[in-house]
C-alpha cells in the first residue's frame, strides 16, 4: 500500500538535491520524457487546427468555471434522471466517508480501482484500509507503485521513475504466482499484470473510478485509458463509485469533440488512446454513485490569477517538457500533482503553510515550455510568479526588499547607494557569510563596476 503524501517533510530544493544525485532515476526520466515529447510533437503537428482546438478548449473550460454552480446542478439532475445517485463532498474527509459508507453498504471488503488522480489526492486507499477495506489498483503503473510500496511520480505514468528491469524485480518480489522465468521484455511484464488481475476483475463486486470529463447536458461520464483495466472496472462490478473533482465538468456533449482531440495527443502522444468509456447514470443494471469533490477547488476558483489551473485536464504534457521535472523527478514535489502543474495546483489546493508547499512556486526556471504545450493554455509561469509574491517570505528577506524598495524609489537615494557600493566594492566577498550563503550557493554575486552607468552618462553625454 503506498504511503501518504500529506504532511511530507522537506522542501522542493532539498528533495530535488537528493533526487538529482540518483543517476538511475535521471536516466529513466530522461529516456521516458524524451520519448513522449517526440511522440506528442508528431501527432500534434498532424493537426493544422491545433491552436484553434486549444483556444476552444481554454474557452470551454473558462466558461464552465464561470458558470460552475449552474452546470453542477444540471449534471446532478441528469445523473439522477438516468438512475444514478449524486453525493457532494466539501473535502477529502467527507469524500472518503461517503465512499467508505457506500462500500460498507454492499458488504464487500475488497474493491478494484481505475487510476484516478482525485482518489489519490484524498488518500482514499488509506481511508478504506483504516475501515478494513482493501483497494486494488489495476492500472499497470499504479500496480507497480502499489506493489513497490512507492509513491507515484507522474500524472499519467506514476511509475515513470522505474525502468523495465526494476519493474521486473518488483513483480518477482511482490506478485504471487508470477512466472519464475519472467523477463524484462515489456510485453512479458504486461502479460504478468494481465494474469495477476484477471481473476480479481471477474470476481469484484465494487469498483471505484475517477473521470476525465463529465457532461452536464447529458449527465455522461468519460474515462480515457489504454489497458482495458478501466473498462473492466467500469463494466463488470455490480456497484460503481466515481469520485470526480467539480472542475472536470463540460457543459455540452459537443464539447467532447474538442477534448477527445486535445487529451490523447497531449498525454500519450497518440491520435487516440486505445479505450474510452462513456456512460450515463446506471447502465446495464449497475448501481452508480457520483461523488462531486471540492477539496479546495472553490478556493482556487476565487483567485483571479490562479483559477486558470482548474482548466487542467491532467494530460501531463507540462511534466514531460519541463527541464526541472526531467532532472528532479516527481517525488521531489511531494504531492500527487508533480511538475509545473503541480507547482501551481498543490500550493493553491493545500495552501502554503508548510515549507514544502511554500517552496513549490520556485520549482521552475520560468522558461515557459509548459505554457506552450498546455492543451488548455494555462499560463503556468504567470501563476508561479503570482504565487511567489503570495508565498511567505523570511523576515530578513522582507526587510531587505523594503530597504531596496525605499532606495529604488528615489534617484538621489539610488545614486548615493551606488557610490557607497563602489567605494566598498573591493570588500564584497564572492560568497556571502552565514544564512546569506543560501543565496550565493547557487548564484554569483554580480561584479560591482568602477562607476555606475548613471555617473558615466553624466560625465560623457551631458558634457
Amino acid at each position, binding site marked *: 500500500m503506498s504511503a501518504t503524501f500529506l504532511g511530507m517533510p522537506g522542501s522542493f530544493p532539498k528533495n530535488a538535491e537528493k533526487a538529482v544525485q540518483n543517476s538511475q532515476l535521471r536516466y529513466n526520466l530522461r529516456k521516458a520524457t524524451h520519448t513522449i515529447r517526440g511522440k506528442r510533437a508528431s501527432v500534434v503537428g498532424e493537426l493544422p487546427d491545433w491552436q484553434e482546438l486549444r483556444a476552444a478548449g481554454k474557452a470551454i473550460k473558462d466558461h464552465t468555471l464561470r*458558470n460552475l454552480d449552474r452546470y453542477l446542478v444540471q449534471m446532478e439532475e441528469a445523473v439522477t434522471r438516468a438512475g444514478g445517485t449524486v453525493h457532494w463532498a466539501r473535502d477529502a474527509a467527507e469524500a472518503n466517508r461517503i465512499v467508505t459508507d457506500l462500500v460498507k453498504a454492499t458488504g464487500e471488503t475488497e474493491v478494484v480501482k481505475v487510476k484516478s488522480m482525485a482518489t489519490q489526492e484524498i488518500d482514499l486507499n488509506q481511508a478504506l484500509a483504516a475501515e478494513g477495506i482493501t483497494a486494488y489498483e489495476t492500472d499497470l503503473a499504479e500496480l507497480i507503485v502499489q506493489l513497490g510500496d512507492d509513491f507515484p511520480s507522474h500524472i499519467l505514468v506514476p511509475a515513470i521513475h522505474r525502468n523495465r528491469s526494476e519493474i521486473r524485480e518488483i513483480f518477482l518480489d511482490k506478485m504471487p504466482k508470477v512466472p519464475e522465468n519472467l523477463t524484462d521484455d515489456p510485453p512479458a511484464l504486461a502479460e504478468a499484470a494481465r494474469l495477476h488481475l484477471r481473476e480479481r476483475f471477474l470476481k469484484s463486486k465494487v469498483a471505484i473510478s475517477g473521470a476525465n470529463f463529465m457532461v452536464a447536458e447529458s449527465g455522461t461520464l468519460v474515462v480515457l485509458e489504454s489497458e482495458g483495466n478501466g473498462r473492466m472496472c467500469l463494466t463488470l462490478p455490480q456497484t460503481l463509485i466515481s469520485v470526480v473533482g467539480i472542475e472536470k465538468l463540460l457543459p455540452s456533449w459537443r464539447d467532447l469533440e474538442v477534448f477527445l482531440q486535445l487529451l490523447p495527443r497531449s498525454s500519450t502522444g497518440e491520435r487516440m488512446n486505445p479505450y474510452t*468509456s462513456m456512460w450515463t447514470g446506471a447502465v446495464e443494471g449497475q448501481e452508480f454513485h457520483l461523488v462531486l469533490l471540492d477539496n479546495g477547488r472553490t478556493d482556487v476558483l476565487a483567485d483571479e490569477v490562479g483559477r486558470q489551473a482548474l482548466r487542467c485536464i491532467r494530460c501531463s504534457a507540462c511534466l514531460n517538457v519541463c527541464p526541472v521535472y526531467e532532472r528532479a523527478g516527481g517525488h521531489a514535489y511531494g504531492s500527487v500533482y508533480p511538475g509545473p502543474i503541480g507547482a501551481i495546483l498543490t500550493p493553491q489546493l493545500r495552501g502554503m503553510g508548510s515549507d514544502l508547499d511554500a517552496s513549490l512556486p520556485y520549482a521552475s526556471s520560468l522558461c515557459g515550455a509548459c505554457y506552450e504545450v498546455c492543451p488548455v493554455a494555462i499560463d503556468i509561469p504567470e501563476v508561479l510568479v503570482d504565487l511567489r509574491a503570495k508565498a511567505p517570505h523570511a523576515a530578513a528577506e522582507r526587510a531587505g526588499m523594503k530597504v531596496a524598495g525605499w532606495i529604488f524609489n528615489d534617484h538621489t537615494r539610488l545614486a548615493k547607494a551606488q557610490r557607497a557600493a563602489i567605494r566598498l566594492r573591493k570588500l564584497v566577498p564572492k560568497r556571502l557569510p552565514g544564512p546569506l550563503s543560501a543565496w550565493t550557493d547557487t548564484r554569483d554575486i554580480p561584479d560591482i563596476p568602477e562607476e555606475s552607468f548613471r555617473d558615466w552618462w553624466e560625465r560623457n553625454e551631458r558634457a
Partner: protein
Amino acid sequence: MSAREEILAKIGKAVAGAEDVEIPRDYRTTQQVEDLVGLFAERVDDYRAIVHVLPAAEVPAKIDELVAGRRMIRPGGEGWEDLNTADGVVTSCAVAVAETGTIVLDHGPGQGTRAQTLVPDYHLCVVRADQIVSCVPEAIARLDPARPLTWISGPSATSDIELNRVEGVHGPRTLEVIIST
C-alpha cells in the same frame, strides 16, 4: 448547511463579477478526405490491429474463415454463450473515425454488451463503409450520449513501461477489423 449548498454558495461567491467567456469554434468540424476507407484502414493498421477491406458480399465468408475453430460470442446470432470461456466476439459498430482509426460501439443490436466485447481475447469488428466519418467532431454528432459508448483504437495497450506503447494488457489482445464496402 449541506455540502451541496455550501459548495454551490462558495462557487457563486468566487465567480461573482467575473465576465462570461465566448467559445470560439474555429477548428475543423469536418474534413474532406478522398479515400475515407483507405485512411481508416491505414490508421487502424498503425495500432497493430489487423484490417481487411472487402466487398459486402464477401464478408460473411471471411467471417466464417476467421472464426473457424474459435468459440465465438455472436450478439444477435447463434454463438458461444459463456463469457469466461469464449475465445472471441464478433460485432458490428455504431460509427468509425478515419483520422484516428477509432471504432465506436454503442452496444446496440449486433454489438453485444460492454463485457462481451471486453473479456474475450479476440475482437472481430465489421465496419460498413458508410459508418466511417472523417474526424472526431463528426463522430460525436452521430452518437447518442444516452447509450453506453466504447471507443476502441487498436488492441489493448499500455504506455506505462518507459512511455512506449506495448500491445496486450487487459482488453482483447487481438483486434481484427473487416471494412465492408
